[in-house]
């Protein structure tokens, strides 16, 4: 309540109750005292971080482990690529591993039984997921850029860069969508299902490269582009769902 309004209300009340006995000076003194009391009683809301402030804090607790996991996966993939002298058509086989990389952090709360405590904090489950996806996305961008650079250098095939980007995007998006759907829709064993799905995807893409070699020729780029656009739309839909869930304050994923 504003001081002016409080003053007016008090004046009206006191004068209505005892119109003939009001000493204006005393009335003013009483009103000032009341204003002071109301000011002291007003609960000062404690300062809280916005989402971006949380993201900055989350880097310390989530970002560093995510980067660490990505570094490990990146080194493994580079090692395998180096040994096998991989052709670009084998790139999709490794992309699901970059979705696997942030999973220890994403499922950490569930694994260690911290879900309940985390769920009742100001930062909603959806916001936590969004922060982790942003951090994982940044790490993935670095790793995939590194991998493509290595592949381009090895294959001396800069002209196939566009194709290789698609070979990275499509399996990555599919696996990301799979993981986010499993988190959202499954109540139990979502960590196991996601992990199994990702390793299954690795096997699938490895098989596809051998079984359908024409899919990895320049003439099939259109198929990859269509797939990339389609799965990008699904991925954006999942992200939108997370953002909306966060705004509405609803639970995201399995808490109990």
């Amino acid at each position, binding site marked *: 309540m504003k001081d002016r309004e409080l003053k007016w209300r008090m004046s009206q009340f006191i004068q209505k109750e005892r119109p003939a006995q009001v000493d204006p000076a005393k009335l003013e003194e009483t009103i000032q005292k009341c204003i002071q009391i109301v000011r002291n009683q007003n609960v000062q809301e*404690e*300062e*809280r*971080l*916005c989402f971006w*402030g*949380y993201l900055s*804090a*989350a880097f*310390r*607790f989530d970002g560093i482990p995510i980067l660490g996991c990505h570094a490990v996966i990146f080194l493994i993939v580079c090692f395998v690529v180096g040994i096998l002298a991989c052709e670009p058509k084998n790139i999709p086989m490794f992309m699901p591993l970059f979705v696997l990389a942030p999973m220890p952090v994403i499922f*950490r709360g569930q694994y*260690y*039984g*911290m879900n*309940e*405590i*985390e*769920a*009742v*904090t*100001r*930062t*909603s489950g959806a916001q*936590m997921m969004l922060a982790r996806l942003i951090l994982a996305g940044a790490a993935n961008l670095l790793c995939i850029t590194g991998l493509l650079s290595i592949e381009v250098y090895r294959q001396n095939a800069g002209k196939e860069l566009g194709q290789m980007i698609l070979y990275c995007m499509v399996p990555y998006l599919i696996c990301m969508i799979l993981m986010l759907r499993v988190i959202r829709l499954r109540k139990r064993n979502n960590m196991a299902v996601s992990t199994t799905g990702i390793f299954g995807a690795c096997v699938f893409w490895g098989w596809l490269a051998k079984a359908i070699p024409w899919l990895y020729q320049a003439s099939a780029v259109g198929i990859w582009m269509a797939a990339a656009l389609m799965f990008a739309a699904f991925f954006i839909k999942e992200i939108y769902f997370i953002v909306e869930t966060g705004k*509405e*304050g*609803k*639970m995201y994923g399995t*808490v*109990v």
Partner: protein
Amino acid sequence: MELSFDRLTKQYGSKIAVDRVSAVLKPGVYGLLGENGAGKTTLMRMLCAILEATSGEVFFNGEEITAMGAAYRNILGYLPQDFGYYPNYTATEFLRYIAALKGIPGNIAKKRIRELLEIVGLDHVASKKVKTFSGGMKQRVGIAQALLNNPQVLILDEPTAGLDPKERVRLRNLLADYAGNKIVILSTHIVPDIEAIADEVLLMKSGKLILQGTVPQLVQKADGKVWELSVSEKEARRWETETTVANFRHEGSQVVLRILSDTKPAEYAIPCEATLEDLYLYYFGTTEGADKDENS
């Protein structure tokens, strides 16, 4: 300030875990008492908005808590019954992590963590990893994290589990100091903990809220139902199988039984003053107690 819930129900298939529970809670300490499986944890989870109710609503100051979203979680502190921890975090790091989730800026969090670790008696192990802590120490870290955001509504599920008597007294004193103008709800089946600090007790049984009132009001319900009698050891075993025996002690060759019964169990039985524990055992002591509810 008021936390109210109206006909709150949680059903899992054919099993009703919480059955049309209603209450209005104002600032004070509320003890939620009930045996295992009474529905205490389910009720608390619904009050924390982490479990969706099958029907019914929870209101904080007249506003529905799921609609409040982050605003409600901002004023909420919660310690779950079986809470986990990240083992490689130190106590300070763990609390800093929770502070980040609670949106507390770093400079404020640092100061508050220091204060809370001192309050819960863990300041000397602040930089040790949580995985090295004893059960009681982990529980104290849990309590500290619940208090980080200075919550107006504090919900603690079995907070004294795993604490030794000294730690339980410390916690009770902490909660009694903290309660003031806040709503504190703690669930337990350790009756003395409730008796010591609760302003009001809510007794739950089979998902229903069967009694609510101050400790004296509830104890009054057990008046006239508590008896003491001295019997031989052989007879004592018979009494144990046929009645609810709250306590027995040996006095020479005799056994003094404290029995809960609606009617005088024997000619030589002496009526005794009831306690909250007697009331608890009266409702939960035997399978016959399954029939007892607020109408008993």
